[in-house]
């Protein structure tokens, strides 16, 4: 077990290191930030050089990379070109907003996906199952931003119930949260439903469920205790991954609702060629995903000896 954990941790660190190289190189291919940020298009070459020197862009890539990685180890992503303040400050100012949106979307995806998935599996080929299949299909086929626009049209414009942009002044301004979180959670609800259904189906066909039924255990106990409990493992896995993804892929939803999250920070950083912002937030996104995968790998190995002995 110890060997397994150590090797997984090693591979995760290796992955993150390769990721820093990829991000560092690619962000420098997006163009020269000095050209974009010099206020006047006709700025002299000397001005541009001064800007580049100020940002440390005149040094060789190797020196820049060494500084970048060295600072990352100290928890420092550098200063934003656009805002002049520390990237960590901006990032952690935005992160709670993203977490709030992701948490709400997460709850919505679970509330829609899991119960409907269970009913679909239990009442196979019934009307419930058909509704479940439809929701799963539409969840994957309707892009989140289309859901967002339709919601805005219905609840923001026609009915005038909900505000269409912003996040409100207080953390608990729920009415600002409803539309963006539904639009974001929609896609994930579809995949959650699919997984719950197939996982439940697998467990319901197993011998111990048949045995429980033969013993005369009431059907609802069979479903809730014997079946659902065992179908939980893949569901929890997916849920963990989805929560992390939701924090990072909400860009389009954030742009539509002008939600000040991490996604729009990345987008703004890319269009403004703000290298430190892009490097920092992309590395954070990568670290979150690698971290969750690592945690899940170890959790699995802990539960299932076959994995830790083979890996």
């Amino acid at each position, binding site marked *: 077990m110890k060997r397994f954990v150590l090797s997984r941790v090693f591979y995760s660190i*290796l992955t993150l290191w*390769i990721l820093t190289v990829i991000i560092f190189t690619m962000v420098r291919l*997006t163009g020269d930030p000095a050209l974009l940020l010099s206020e006047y298009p006709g700025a002299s070459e000397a001005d541009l050089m001064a800007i580049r020197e100020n940002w440390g862009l005149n040094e060789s890539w190797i020196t820049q990379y060494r500084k970048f990685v060295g600072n990352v180890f100290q928890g420092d992503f550098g200063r934003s070109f656009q805002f002049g303040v520390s990237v960590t400050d901006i990032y952690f100012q935005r992160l709670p907003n993203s977490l709030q949106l992701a948490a709400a979307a997460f709850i919505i995806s679970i509330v829609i996906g899991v119960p409907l998935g269970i009913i679909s599996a239990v009442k196979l080929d019934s009307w419930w199952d058909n509704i479940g299949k439809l929701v799963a299909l*539409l969840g994957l086929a*309707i892009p989140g931003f*289309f859901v967002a*626009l339709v919601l805005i*049209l219905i609840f923001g414009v026609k009915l005038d119930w909900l505000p269409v942009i912003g996040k409100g002044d207080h953390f608990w301004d729920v009415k600002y949260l409803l539309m963006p979180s539904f639009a974001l959670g929609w896609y994930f609800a579809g995949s959650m439903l699919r997984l719950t259904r197939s996982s439940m189906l697998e467990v319901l066909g197993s011998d111990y469920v048949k045995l429980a039924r033969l013993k005369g255990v009431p059907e609802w106990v069979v479903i809730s205790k014997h079946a659902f409990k065992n179908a939980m493992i893949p569901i929890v896995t997916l849920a963990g991954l989805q929560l992390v993804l939701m924090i990072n*892929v909400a860009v389009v939803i954030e742009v539509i609702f002008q939600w000040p999250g991490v996604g729009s920070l990345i987008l703004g950083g890319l269009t403004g060629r703000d290298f430190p912002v892009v490097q920092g937030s992309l590395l954070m996104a990568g670290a979150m995903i690698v971290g969750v995968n690592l945690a899940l790998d170890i959790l699995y190995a802990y539960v299932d000896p076959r994995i830790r002995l083979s890996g």
Partner: protein
Amino acid sequence: MANVPQTVASPVGSPIAQTARKGWAFAREAPLLPMVILASILFLAIFADLLPLHDPEVSVKDKLTGRPVAGTLPPAWMDGGTWRMPLGTDFQSRDILSRVIYGARVSLIVGLVGTLAAGAIGTVLGMLAGYMGKWWDQVIMRITDAWLALPTLIFAIFLASIRGAGLWNIVIILTLVFWSRYARQVRAEVLSLRERDFVKLAEVTGASRVRIMLKHILPNVMNTVMVLFSLTIGVAIIIEASLSFLGVGVPPPTPAWGLMMADGKGPLIGGDWWISVFPGIAIMLLVLAANLLGDWLRVRLDPQLRNR
């Protein structure tokens, strides 16, 4: 068989005819609804130039005055709409119906070519990693892991800001984003194929590694690749639409569904819904059809799933 004269048609027909017949038999098994949707979208996209449509990129002119007709005209069945522009016009007086139909070209090209190219690259790398093992495996899989650590959409936006806007750039971006999925899956499959008897026997007879990969491994991973391909198309189309929606995808005035939806966002808040909603429905139908076919293919090609 080689002596049979060319003029005499053998009962089974030429290899090409055989493949075609097999393909047709396969296609006839496919579910009807997605096939009909896909066929109609394909038809409209290919023959858009022959249909009596307005130019999708310029405003529709009034027949009498020759000046552009009013912008944001509602669809024909609503007050103020006309059947000349059945789905209405956008704020530049362009015909929405025509833009939706021409927009299918962008989505289809990007979705098909992008996923095909990604599939080709990913399959080759996955086979190399899985069959050659050792350093090949380490290098390729470590890069694949790092590649998969970035969320697809964020990665696509990242690449889009390097390549700049443009249809073929989006194809390249999707290729670069999606190859890693294929590589990971194909490698896993090759790892188990490598231990099978027919590969071992080929090795014993002295077949070269390239030959084993092409003749023995590749045909056996094609099912996996095809399933992954069909399930990735939908995602690729949505990613393209998202990029265009954010303004880093296909540049205006090209009709692309994501772009049209972004155009319609402002008017939508004023209540003029049709500019955004029709392209949205188009995306939904196309992705829905692609996913339905993908699901069918997955069940059809995987014997373990067939009875579920």
